[in-house]
Protein backbone atom coordinates (compact mmCIF):
# COMPACT_ATOMS: atom_id res chain seq x y z
CA UNK A 1 0.00 0.00 0.00
CA UNK A 2 1.49 3.32 -1.02
CA UNK A 3 0.35 6.35 0.92
CA UNK A 4 2.25 9.55 0.50
CA UNK A 5 1.40 12.15 3.08
CA UNK A 6 4.36 14.47 3.54
CA UNK A 7 1.87 17.19 4.51
CA UNK A 8 0.98 15.68 7.88
CA UNK A 9 4.38 15.82 9.59
CA UNK A 10 4.72 19.38 8.35
CA UNK A 11 1.39 20.59 9.65
CA UNK A 12 1.93 18.91 12.98
CA UNK A 13 5.32 20.56 13.26
CA UNK A 14 3.50 23.88 13.26
CA UNK A 15 1.61 22.65 16.35
CA UNK A 16 4.85 23.04 18.27
CA UNK A 17 4.86 26.82 17.93
CA UNK A 18 3.89 28.39 21.20
CA UNK A 19 1.17 30.97 21.79
CA UNK A 20 -0.73 31.72 25.03
CA UNK A 21 -3.20 29.20 26.44
CA UNK A 22 -6.75 29.80 25.28
CA UNK A 23 -9.16 26.91 25.44
CA UNK A 24 -10.18 24.21 27.89
CA UNK A 25 -7.47 22.13 29.50
CA UNK A 26 -6.43 20.69 32.87
CA UNK A 27 -4.39 22.56 35.48
CA UNK A 28 -1.19 20.59 34.84
CA UNK A 29 -1.36 21.20 31.08
CA UNK A 30 -0.33 24.82 31.50
CA UNK A 31 0.60 25.50 35.12
CA UNK A 32 3.31 24.50 37.60
CA UNK A 33 1.94 23.37 40.99
CA UNK A 34 5.35 23.98 42.59
CA UNK A 35 5.27 27.71 41.84
CA UNK A 36 2.69 29.30 44.15
CA UNK A 37 2.37 33.01 43.46
CA UNK A 38 0.43 35.85 45.05
CA UNK A 39 -0.43 38.86 42.95
CA UNK A 40 -1.79 42.09 44.43
CA UNK A 41 -2.78 44.63 41.84
CA UNK A 42 -5.28 46.72 39.99
CA UNK A 43 -7.64 45.17 37.43
CA UNK A 44 -6.92 46.36 33.89
CA UNK A 45 -9.08 43.98 31.84
CA UNK A 46 -11.67 41.24 32.35
CA UNK A 47 -12.56 38.48 29.87
CA UNK A 48 -15.70 36.74 31.12
CA UNK A 49 -15.31 33.90 28.64
CA UNK A 50 -15.75 30.18 28.02
CA UNK A 51 -14.16 27.78 28.56
CA UNK A 52 -11.87 29.73 30.92
CA UNK A 53 -12.20 33.31 32.10
CA UNK A 54 -9.26 35.71 32.24
CA UNK A 55 -8.59 38.89 34.12
CA UNK A 56 -5.51 41.05 34.06
CA UNK A 57 -3.83 43.04 36.85
CA UNK A 58 -1.08 45.63 36.98
CA UNK A 59 1.35 44.81 39.76
CA UNK A 60 4.40 46.63 41.14
CA UNK A 61 7.28 44.45 42.37
CA UNK A 62 9.68 45.11 45.27
CA UNK A 63 12.05 47.03 42.97
CA UNK A 64 9.27 49.32 41.79
CA UNK A 65 8.91 47.78 38.33
CA UNK A 66 5.33 47.45 37.19
CA UNK A 67 4.04 44.70 34.93
CA UNK A 68 0.75 43.33 33.68
CA UNK A 69 -0.23 39.77 34.60
CA UNK A 70 -2.95 37.52 33.25
CA UNK A 71 -4.97 35.36 35.63
CA UNK A 72 -6.90 32.35 34.36
CA UNK A 73 -10.01 31.20 36.17
CA UNK A 74 -12.87 28.78 35.61
CA UNK A 75 -15.56 29.55 33.01
CA UNK A 76 -18.61 31.77 33.63
CA UNK A 77 -20.84 28.83 34.61
CA UNK A 78 -18.60 27.55 37.41
CA UNK A 79 -17.80 31.05 38.72
CA UNK A 80 -21.51 32.01 38.72
CA UNK A 81 -22.34 29.00 40.89
CA UNK A 82 -19.81 30.33 43.42
CA UNK A 83 -21.55 33.68 43.51
CA UNK A 84 -19.07 35.52 41.29
CA UNK A 85 -21.12 37.32 38.66
CA UNK A 86 -20.12 39.08 35.49
CA UNK A 87 -19.25 42.65 36.40
CA UNK A 88 -18.24 41.88 40.01
CA UNK A 89 -14.68 42.85 39.10
CA UNK A 90 -14.34 46.38 37.83
CA UNK A 91 -11.44 48.05 36.07
CA UNK A 92 -9.26 49.69 38.73
CA UNK A 93 -10.37 47.40 41.59
CA UNK A 94 -7.47 46.18 43.73
CA UNK A 95 -7.59 42.41 44.17
CA UNK A 96 -5.43 39.65 45.63
CA UNK A 97 -4.94 36.56 43.48
CA UNK A 98 -3.34 33.38 44.83
CA UNK A 99 -2.34 30.99 42.11
CA UNK A 100 0.37 29.16 40.25
CA UNK A 101 2.65 30.32 37.45
CA UNK A 102 2.44 29.16 33.87
CA UNK A 103 5.00 26.51 32.92
CA UNK A 104 6.16 28.59 29.95
CA UNK A 105 7.31 31.37 32.30
CA UNK A 106 4.95 33.99 30.86
CA UNK A 107 3.14 36.55 33.03
CA UNK A 108 0.20 34.21 33.52
CA UNK A 109 -1.06 32.45 36.63
CA UNK A 110 -3.89 30.04 37.29
CA UNK A 111 -6.08 31.88 39.80
CA UNK A 112 -7.00 29.42 42.55
CA UNK A 113 -8.27 31.98 45.07
CA UNK A 114 -9.38 35.52 44.36
CA UNK A 115 -9.94 38.11 47.08
CA UNK A 116 -12.26 40.96 46.12
CA UNK A 117 -11.91 44.54 47.42
CA UNK A 118 -14.66 43.85 50.01
CA UNK A 119 -12.74 40.89 51.47
CA UNK A 120 -14.88 38.19 49.86
CA UNK A 121 -12.85 35.24 48.53
CA UNK A 122 -13.83 32.93 45.68
CA UNK A 123 -12.30 29.66 44.51
CA UNK A 124 -11.08 30.16 40.93
CA UNK A 125 -10.25 26.64 39.72
CA UNK A 126 -12.23 24.68 37.11
CA UNK A 127 -14.18 21.77 38.64
CA UNK A 128 -12.15 18.60 38.03
CA UNK A 129 -9.03 20.33 36.66
CA UNK A 130 -6.81 18.40 39.08
CA UNK A 131 -5.08 21.53 40.40
CA UNK A 132 -4.53 22.56 44.03
CA UNK A 133 -7.84 22.76 45.93
CA UNK A 134 -9.74 20.74 43.33
CA UNK A 135 -11.89 18.05 44.91
CA UNK A 136 -14.17 17.59 41.93
CA UNK A 137 -16.87 19.89 43.28
CA UNK A 138 -17.93 23.37 42.25
CA UNK A 139 -16.74 24.99 45.45
CA UNK A 140 -13.38 23.20 45.67
CA UNK A 141 -11.58 22.66 48.96
CA UNK A 142 -8.95 25.37 49.02
CA UNK A 143 -8.18 26.75 52.51
CA UNK A 144 -9.46 30.29 52.85
CA UNK A 145 -11.51 30.24 49.65
CA UNK A 146 -15.25 30.97 49.48
CA UNK A 147 -15.33 33.27 52.48
CA UNK A 148 -18.11 35.82 52.66
CA UNK A 149 -17.01 39.37 53.24
Amino acid at each position, binding site marked *: *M*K*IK*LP*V*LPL*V*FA*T*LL*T*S*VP*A*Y*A*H*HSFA*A*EFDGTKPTRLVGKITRVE*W*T*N*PHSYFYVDIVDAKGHSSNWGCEGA*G*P*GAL*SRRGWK*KGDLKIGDTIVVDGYRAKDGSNLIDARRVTFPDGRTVYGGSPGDGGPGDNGTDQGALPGANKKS
Partner: protein
Amino acid sequence: MAQPLLQHFCQILYDSPFGTSVRESDYAFSVIESVHVLSITLLVGSISILDLRMLGLSLREIPVTRVARSVLPLTWAGFGVMFVSGFLLFWAEAAKSYTNPAFRVKVVLLLLVGLNPLIFHTTIYRRVAEWERDHRSPWRARVAACVSLLLWGSIIVAGRAIAYF
Protein backbone atom coordinates in the same frame (compact mmCIF):
# COMPACT_ATOMS: atom_id res chain seq x y z
CA MET B 1 -3.41 49.03 12.44
CA ALA B 2 -3.63 47.05 9.22
CA GLN B 3 -5.31 43.72 9.69
CA PRO B 4 -5.79 40.82 7.28
CA LEU B 5 -9.37 40.73 5.96
CA LEU B 6 -9.93 37.26 7.41
CA GLN B 7 -8.80 38.40 10.86
CA HIS B 8 -11.07 41.42 10.60
CA PHE B 9 -13.99 39.12 9.77
CA CYS B 10 -13.12 36.90 12.78
CA GLN B 11 -13.10 39.96 15.03
CA ILE B 12 -16.54 41.03 13.76
CA LEU B 13 -17.94 37.56 14.54
CA TYR B 14 -16.22 37.59 17.95
CA ASP B 15 -17.62 41.02 18.84
CA SER B 16 -21.16 40.29 17.62
CA PRO B 17 -23.91 40.05 20.26
CA PHE B 18 -24.49 36.37 19.47
CA GLY B 19 -20.81 35.38 19.62
CA THR B 20 -20.40 37.30 22.85
CA SER B 21 -23.47 35.75 24.46
CA VAL B 22 -22.24 32.20 23.70
CA ARG B 23 -18.72 33.02 24.88
CA GLU B 24 -20.01 34.53 28.13
CA SER B 25 -22.82 32.00 28.70
CA ASP B 26 -23.09 29.89 31.84
CA TYR B 27 -24.08 26.71 29.99
CA ALA B 28 -24.69 27.21 26.25
CA PHE B 29 -21.01 26.93 25.32
CA SER B 30 -20.52 23.58 27.05
CA VAL B 31 -23.80 22.21 25.64
CA ILE B 32 -22.75 23.15 22.08
CA GLU B 33 -19.34 21.57 22.74
CA SER B 34 -21.01 18.32 23.78
CA VAL B 35 -23.26 18.28 20.70
CA HIS B 36 -20.16 18.91 18.58
CA VAL B 37 -18.34 15.92 20.08
CA LEU B 38 -21.38 13.62 19.75
CA SER B 39 -21.86 14.56 16.09
CA ILE B 40 -18.18 13.83 15.42
CA THR B 41 -18.65 10.33 16.83
CA LEU B 42 -21.58 9.79 14.45
CA LEU B 43 -19.68 11.13 11.44
CA VAL B 44 -16.34 9.43 12.04
CA GLY B 45 -17.88 6.26 13.47
CA SER B 46 -20.11 5.71 10.44
CA ILE B 47 -17.58 6.59 7.73
CA SER B 48 -15.01 4.34 9.43
CA ILE B 49 -17.28 1.35 8.82
CA LEU B 50 -17.14 1.99 5.07
CA ASP B 51 -13.39 2.62 5.19
CA LEU B 52 -12.78 -0.62 7.12
CA ARG B 53 -15.03 -2.52 4.69
CA MET B 54 -12.95 -1.36 1.72
CA LEU B 55 -9.75 -2.32 3.54
CA GLY B 56 -11.23 -5.79 4.02
CA LEU B 57 -11.27 -5.51 7.82
CA SER B 58 -15.03 -5.65 8.41
CA LEU B 59 -18.30 -6.79 6.75
CA ARG B 60 -16.31 -8.52 4.00
CA GLU B 61 -19.32 -10.50 2.76
CA ILE B 62 -21.46 -7.40 2.22
CA PRO B 63 -21.06 -5.48 -1.08
CA VAL B 64 -19.40 -2.08 -0.68
CA THR B 65 -22.40 -0.26 -2.20
CA ARG B 66 -24.76 -1.75 0.39
CA VAL B 67 -22.48 -0.66 3.22
CA ALA B 68 -22.21 2.81 1.63
CA ARG B 69 -26.00 3.17 1.25
CA SER B 70 -26.48 2.21 4.87
CA VAL B 71 -23.81 4.42 6.50
CA LEU B 72 -23.61 7.53 4.32
CA PRO B 73 -26.94 9.08 5.46
CA LEU B 74 -25.66 8.81 9.05
CA THR B 75 -22.32 10.31 8.00
CA TRP B 76 -24.04 13.29 6.35
CA ALA B 77 -26.33 13.80 9.34
CA GLY B 78 -23.28 13.78 11.62
CA PHE B 79 -21.48 16.17 9.29
CA GLY B 80 -24.40 18.63 9.29
CA VAL B 81 -24.66 18.79 13.06
CA MET B 82 -20.86 18.85 13.43
CA PHE B 83 -20.53 21.75 10.99
CA VAL B 84 -23.28 23.86 12.55
CA SER B 85 -22.18 23.26 16.17
CA GLY B 86 -18.54 23.79 15.19
CA PHE B 87 -19.38 27.05 13.49
CA LEU B 88 -21.24 28.26 16.60
CA LEU B 89 -18.16 27.51 18.73
CA PHE B 90 -15.96 29.29 16.19
CA TRP B 91 -18.36 32.25 16.20
CA ALA B 92 -17.90 32.57 19.97
CA GLU B 93 -14.10 32.29 19.81
CA ALA B 94 -13.29 33.51 16.28
CA ALA B 95 -10.72 36.18 17.19
CA LYS B 96 -8.80 33.67 19.32
CA SER B 97 -9.24 30.80 16.85
CA TYR B 98 -7.69 32.93 14.11
CA THR B 99 -4.32 33.00 15.86
CA ASN B 100 -4.49 29.42 17.21
CA PRO B 101 -2.04 27.17 15.27
CA ALA B 102 -3.97 23.98 16.09
CA PHE B 103 -7.17 25.56 14.72
CA ARG B 104 -5.37 26.55 11.51
CA VAL B 105 -4.07 23.00 11.09
CA LYS B 106 -7.58 21.68 11.67
CA VAL B 107 -9.08 23.92 8.98
CA VAL B 108 -6.47 22.78 6.45
CA LEU B 109 -7.12 19.12 7.34
CA LEU B 110 -10.90 19.67 6.96
CA LEU B 111 -10.35 21.03 3.45
CA LEU B 112 -8.19 17.99 2.60
CA VAL B 113 -10.72 15.55 4.04
CA GLY B 114 -13.39 17.10 1.81
CA LEU B 115 -11.18 16.63 -1.25
CA ASN B 116 -10.72 12.92 -0.56
CA PRO B 117 -14.33 11.70 -1.25
CA LEU B 118 -14.50 14.11 -4.20
CA ILE B 119 -11.56 12.34 -5.85
CA PHE B 120 -12.77 8.91 -4.72
CA HIS B 121 -16.29 9.28 -6.13
CA THR B 122 -15.15 10.70 -9.48
CA THR B 123 -12.51 8.00 -10.06
CA ILE B 124 -12.41 4.45 -8.70
CA TYR B 125 -15.95 4.51 -7.23
CA ARG B 126 -17.40 5.06 -10.73
CA ARG B 127 -16.56 1.43 -11.49
CA VAL B 128 -17.67 0.14 -8.09
CA ALA B 129 -19.98 -2.44 -9.74
CA GLU B 130 -16.87 -4.30 -10.90
CA TRP B 131 -15.33 -4.64 -7.41
CA GLU B 132 -18.06 -4.11 -4.84
CA ARG B 133 -18.07 -7.82 -3.92
CA ASP B 134 -14.28 -8.13 -3.53
CA HIS B 135 -13.33 -8.83 0.07
CA ARG B 136 -10.53 -6.31 -0.33
CA SER B 137 -11.23 -3.30 -2.56
CA PRO B 138 -8.76 -2.15 -5.28
CA TRP B 139 -5.71 -0.25 -4.08
CA ARG B 140 -7.05 3.17 -5.08
CA ALA B 141 -10.10 2.61 -2.88
CA ARG B 142 -7.91 1.33 -0.05
CA VAL B 143 -5.72 4.44 -0.27
CA ALA B 144 -8.85 6.61 -0.08
CA ALA B 145 -9.99 4.61 2.97
CA CYS B 146 -6.61 5.02 4.70
CA VAL B 147 -6.48 8.73 3.92
CA SER B 148 -10.01 9.13 5.32
CA LEU B 149 -9.15 7.32 8.58
CA LEU B 150 -5.86 9.20 8.92
CA LEU B 151 -7.32 12.64 8.18
CA TRP B 152 -10.35 12.26 10.47
CA GLY B 153 -8.10 10.98 13.24
CA SER B 154 -5.79 13.95 12.76
CA ILE B 155 -8.73 16.38 12.72
CA ILE B 156 -9.86 15.08 16.11
CA VAL B 157 -6.31 15.40 17.50
CA ALA B 158 -5.94 18.93 16.09
CA GLY B 159 -9.38 19.90 17.43
CA ARG B 160 -8.47 18.76 20.92
CA ALA B 161 -5.08 20.47 20.61
CA ILE B 162 -6.81 23.87 20.16
CA ALA B 163 -7.18 23.85 23.95
CA TYR B 164 -3.44 23.71 24.52
CA PHE B 165 -2.28 26.68 22.42
